[in-house]
């Protein structure tokens, strides 16, 4: 399966995985796709779940498929990576959904050792084990039973409360045996609830996500977004647009672009950027120049991160381009593709006024003629919450979005995910390993 297909699917919305009360298997329309992707490249598939813009519903599917599938044919090194990804996914997915996935594994009778270990590790090491046991007792019990086997689980718990017996042998993955000892008998209705309910598991999950939020994208949006708090590059560009084109600002711009480019991976290939600097990107009032500034900021950074990059301007004049003129993205895209790039991206505010609908027609035409070059749409927004409902001139096109400089890396990784050359695949795999490490570190702290 190509990298483009895999990332394209993982970044697309799908209905959530559903498990009926008496269903023998979960409802998941794209199960074949996921199983095929796992069979093709288990490690690449697992790591892709931590990639940019991957939807939470897709991460749930990946976790389910990883635990349901056999790892028997994998070498130790690959198993370790998969184990780490499972551990991270089980923490970043909502705990209720994780429990649902475990239940789904029970229904399909998936009892691989790695799945049992993952379940026990999730429960035994969960920071809110007591609260989980109190609020989701029945499900937790079912998960214990499935992971250990019904009789083993019950015997294990009985041994905990039977003073005559020697202390039960405790599974090796437990960091704090005493906490499990306090909770497990209650889960099996052999003891009173734990005296200290501990932290609310829902709140803990929200707090964890807050902690992770600034990891690969802009930290949570400030209360008031202004021209000056969307990253250094765009702030400097806005100053330049407002008439401050002096040496100090130009140097600061160059410096900020260099620093940001150093954080991004390098693309061994030709990148064509269609930059929309038409009149609509000017904006007005306090947002004047913000949109075009962020688009230009992304362009300037990406120009430094590939072997060859060519910018195809739509409207605009000068450097940095002053917004003016109409938005003829269709012709600019054709110009870009005639340059034979490995990847083409359209950086725009999403408003097309030069014969609206032309871009959608061209994109449809490109698909019909089997144009191999991936073409992506990069939405430049003012805030993270901007609605894109009426700003999709070609809704069929793969798209990503950014409002802050901190989103640039994600945008670039998303773009690279569309390219299928070996060099890019290697680079992406390296990046995803870094993502995995970063997740692990952040979760541990």
């Amino acid at each position, binding site marked *: 399966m190509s990298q483009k297909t895999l990332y394209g699917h993982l970044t697309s919305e799908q209905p959530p995985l559903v498990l009926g009360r008496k269903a023998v298997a979960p409802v998941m329309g794209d199960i074949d796709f996921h199983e095929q992707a796992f069979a093709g490249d288990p490690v690449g598939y697992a790591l892709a779940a931590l990639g940019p813009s991957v939807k939470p519903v897709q991460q749930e599917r990946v976790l389910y498929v990883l635990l349901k599938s056999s790892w028997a044919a994998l070498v130790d090194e690959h198993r370790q990576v998969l184990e780490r990804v499972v551990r991270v996914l089980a923490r970043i997915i909502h705990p209720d959904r994780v429990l649902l996935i475990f239940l789904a594994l029970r229904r399909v009778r998936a009892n691989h050792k790695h799945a049992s270990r993952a379940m026990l590790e999730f429960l035994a090491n969960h920071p809110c084990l007591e609260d989980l046991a109190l609020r989701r007792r029945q499900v937790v019990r079912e998960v214990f039973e499935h992971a250990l086997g019904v009789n083993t689980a019950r015997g294990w718990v009985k041994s905990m409360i039977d003073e005559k017996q020697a202390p039960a042998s405790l599974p090796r993955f437990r960091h704090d045996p005493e906490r499990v000892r306090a909770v497990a008998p209650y889960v099996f209705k052999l003891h009173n609830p734990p005296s200290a309910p501990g932290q609310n598991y829902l709140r803990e999950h929200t707090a964890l996500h807050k902690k992770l939020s600034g990891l690969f994208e802009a930290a949570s949006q400030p209360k008031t977004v202004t021209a000056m708090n969307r990253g250094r590059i765009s702030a400097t560009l806005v100053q330049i647009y407002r008439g401050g084109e002096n040496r100090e600002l130009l140097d600061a711009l160059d410096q900020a672009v260099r620093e940001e480019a150093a954080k991004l991976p390098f693309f061994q290939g030709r990148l064509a950027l269609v930059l929309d600097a038409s009149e609509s990107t000017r904006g007005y009032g306090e947002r004047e120049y913000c949109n075009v500034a962020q688009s230009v900021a992304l362009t300037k950074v990406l120009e430094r991160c590939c072997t060859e990059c060519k910018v195809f301007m739509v409207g605009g004049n000068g450097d940095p381009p002053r917004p003016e003129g109409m938005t003829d993205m269709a*012709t600019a895209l054709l110009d870009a593709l005639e340059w034979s790039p490995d990847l083409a991206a359209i950086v725009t505010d999403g408003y*097309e006024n030069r014969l609206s609908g032309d871009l959608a027609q061209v994109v449809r035409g490109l698909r019909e*003629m089997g144009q191999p070059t991936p073409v992506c749409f990069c939405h430049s927004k003012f805030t993270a919450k901007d609605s894109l409902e*009426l700003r999709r001139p070609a809704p069929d096109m793969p798209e990503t979005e950014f409002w802050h400089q901190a989103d640039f890396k994600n945008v670039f990784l998303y773009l690279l995910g569309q390219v299928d050359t070996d060099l890019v695949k290697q680079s992406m795999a390296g990046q995803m390993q870094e993502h995995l490490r970063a997740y692990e570190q952040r979760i541990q702290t």
Partner: protein
Amino acid sequence: MMIAKNCQELMDFSPQRFGEPQQTGPLTMVPYYGLDRGSRYTPPLSGLKLSKVKGYGNVEMKNPHGEGVAIVPLHIGYIQDGAQNHCLCRSAFIGGKQEIMFRDACCVQQSIGGYLKEKEQWFFILPLQLREKALRLRGVEEYGKLWPAITELNQQFGLKTKGHLDYLLCGERPRLNQYRNQIEVMPGQTGALFLINGHVVGLELTPTPEYFKELWSALLCFCYGVAAMQATLKKGLDESKIEFEASAGLAGLRTALLARRAELQETVATAVQEFSRQQFQQDDKQEQYVDLAMATVESASFMGQVVFDGSDIVYASIFAKQAAYHAAARG
């Protein structure tokens, strides 16, 4: 007495006066580049103020500038919180430092109390669907005269059936505001032709680019934007496909794209030609201001008001009548 006027006497239809069409959904705007008639004409936002409402239906407007003349845009209206929103049924001249009381203004917000004040000057232009009715009711001193038409319009949009234009203008404002980005005013533009589904539904000419720029948002979003929104509901979005030979590659696709654009240019040119053949009857009840004259004009499908400076036209707001608009909206 009515004076017959050929449309070509009203404006210069030379192709060089028109810019490239811009299109979004069913709405097309063709920029018009007329003469810049200088600072004599004060623009509607900075040069024209609503001073007060003295009893419902009585709106006082003023031109705060010492010199020059303000041409009140046809069907201008004001929206404020905690006040009954009003709009004017006609255009007028207001000289420097002059104040004029419009006693034939109409309320566009049924059953809401409070008077508009000078504090906010956020204005709109009546939606296209209401303009014929409003212009015909000029001179009628009854502030609730537009409520039935507004109620009907709200009904057509599936909104509450009341004479509240706010339901549409404020309730749909996020959607209407998007037109501002989808269609852009061009530098030096002094007017525009608006088309719905390839049929002309409005001609707007102003004396200067500044005047047009200040009028632009209100005109586009609230007058023609509402019309385009209804046309989209009626006809749905155009799902036509570009026709080309896949084997011809990128060059073939480009040729097909250019052919499609040429086709649209031709559609626009035909529509403009058709519009230019309209025979207008000019009302003889003209309003005068020094050498300027204002008249109401009407043809079989259009009506509006125009301002002449001698034989030159300096301002025009001509729009499709109800029947012509609905025919265009149905495509």
